[in-house]
């Protein structure tokens, strides 16, 4: 069940619009003026195959966001490297989309303008991208809201728009940092299924950060269990549940088994400080 260290540093680092992410001893230590440095992430190894869906799960402060930022190029590693496809990450790349915990929609733009913003910035605003954005909005059930402003949408709708924005440019990698943690249970489960359908239709490599163990199990091919002080990946668990996954799975004993297996990793590490799955 626990996957061996990646023997397959794959020869073809991209497959059908998705790219491999190879994290090679990447580490991050924050230096703080007048205080001892924080080892936010110990040297970390992880290879995420093209088109794979991997979750990072762990308690607060275990370096999930830190690792995500290294992959996104939003922060520099203080050791090791991250390679996306064949490109060593040194700065952000539009091929790598990020969805944040807050929807981070610009309130002065309409839903449609927000979704098209990355294309506008990249200078790739064509009929095709507009078409793709319209399809995405249709898919997430927000076609009728394209001329609305973010303040007129519910939290769940806003987060849908921010996912559409991340996917509109057909990125090769999608990084999500607790995208659903601010949503209620019902909306969250609906968005899980939408996300999985979007991912199936347009394969891309996904790294999904969450506090929520069952969310990670439901969505992922593999779950990386992280632990804090210093931040690190404790172990990586394969989720051998069949796809496509549907809500019937949520009550499946096999599903519960996986969830409690991951839970036990946390209790072993003594890290499960009241975190609920």
């Amino acid at each position, binding site marked *: 069940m626990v996957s061996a260290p990646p023997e397959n540093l794959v020869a073809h680092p991209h497959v059908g619009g998705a790219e491999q992410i190879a994290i090679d001893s990447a580490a991050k230590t924050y230096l703080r003026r007048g205080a001892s440095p924080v080892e936010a992430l110990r040297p970390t190894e992880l290879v995420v195959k093209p088109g794979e869906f991997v979750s990072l799960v762990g308690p607060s402060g275990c370096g999930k966001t830190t690792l995500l930022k290294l992959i996104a190029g939003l922060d520099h590693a203080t050791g090791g490297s991250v390679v996306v496809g064949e490109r060593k990450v040194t700065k952000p790349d539009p091929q790598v*989309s990020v969805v944040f*915990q807050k929807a981070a929609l610009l309130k*002065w733009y309409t839903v449609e303008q927000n979704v098209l913003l*990355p294309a506008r910035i990249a200078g790739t605003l064509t009929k095709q991208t507009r078409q793709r954005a319209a399809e995405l909005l249709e898919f997430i059930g927000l076609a009728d809201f394209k001329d609305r402003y973010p303040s007129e949408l519910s939290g*769940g*709708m806003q987060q849908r728009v921010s996912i559409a924005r991340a996917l509109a440019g057909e990125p090769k990698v999608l990084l999500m940092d607790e995208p659903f943690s601010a949503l209620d249970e019902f909306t969250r489960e609906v968005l899980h299924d939408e996300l999985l359908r979007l991912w199936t239709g347009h394969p891309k490599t996904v790294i999904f950060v969450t506090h929520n163990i069952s969310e990670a199990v439901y969505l992922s091919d593999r779950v990386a269990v992280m632990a804090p002080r210093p931040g690190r990946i404790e172990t990586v668990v394969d989720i051998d549940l069949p796809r496509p996954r549907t809500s019937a799975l949520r009550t499946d004993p096999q599903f519960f088994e996986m969830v409690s297996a991951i839970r036990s990793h946390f209790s072993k590490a003594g890290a499960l400080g009241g975190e609920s799955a």
Partner: protein
Amino acid sequence: MTMTAEPTSTTKVPRRRKAQPDALPTANRGSAVAKNVGLRLIVPAVVLLAWWYTTSRDMVSPLIVPAPGDVWDALDSYVLGGVWNEDILSSARGTLWSFAIGLVLGIVGGSIMAFVASIKTAVYPYILAFQAFPKIAVAPLFVVWLGYGDAPKIIIGASLAVFPVISATMAGLIDVDPDEHNLMRSVGASKRQELRHLRFPRAMSYVFPALDIAVVGALLGVITAEIVGTEYGLGRVITERAAYGDSAAVYAVLIVLAVAGAILHLAVSTLHRVMPRSIVPK
């Protein structure tokens, strides 16, 4: 084809481009407006009544508080009669120029100081210090240097109008949400694009509320400079009429200024409303 948690998202919704979240349902809006107008009229009605009462009983000297009727006569002959046309025009022109200059200088200066910390360190304390000078004390210097024309009043007016715009621009440009900033970085936005799509609209949402203060500042600065000395202007009228003991005329000027303030406020909020939301967030 899509499962959605909010049933509303699958139903047709009418477009509301200019939707205002706090707008009342249309059925109530008419009576709400009437109610607001009614509320606004209470204070002037009470003041007018008290005013009329005190003057009609000769409780105070007409030199201090002239009768409402006398003030109305002054308004009638000086304003409607056109005697002050030249003065009103001159003050209005001065105010508009002061406001325009203050707005442009404020946005440019505020942007420079927001982005170049060393310039801010070098200059901002002195802008604050100048702000602390009573303008009535500075105005004579400008009049001595620049004469009795429009220049001194525009300078004083602009110096009052510029400050709120500078501080709002600086605050708006500096205030950036870390997630939004990371979003712009992650899509590979250049500094210029980040300015255009993120910082500028946010700054505008700070600047527009400050324009209310700026435009009143422009008016006050102009009147102050005119009181000190000018050829034409309502400030000049105040000093002249006061010297003749013509309190009714001074009151008439004050009423004209109050109306001007209301018009300027209306103009600024209308400007805010008609600007596209993508440039000035609401």
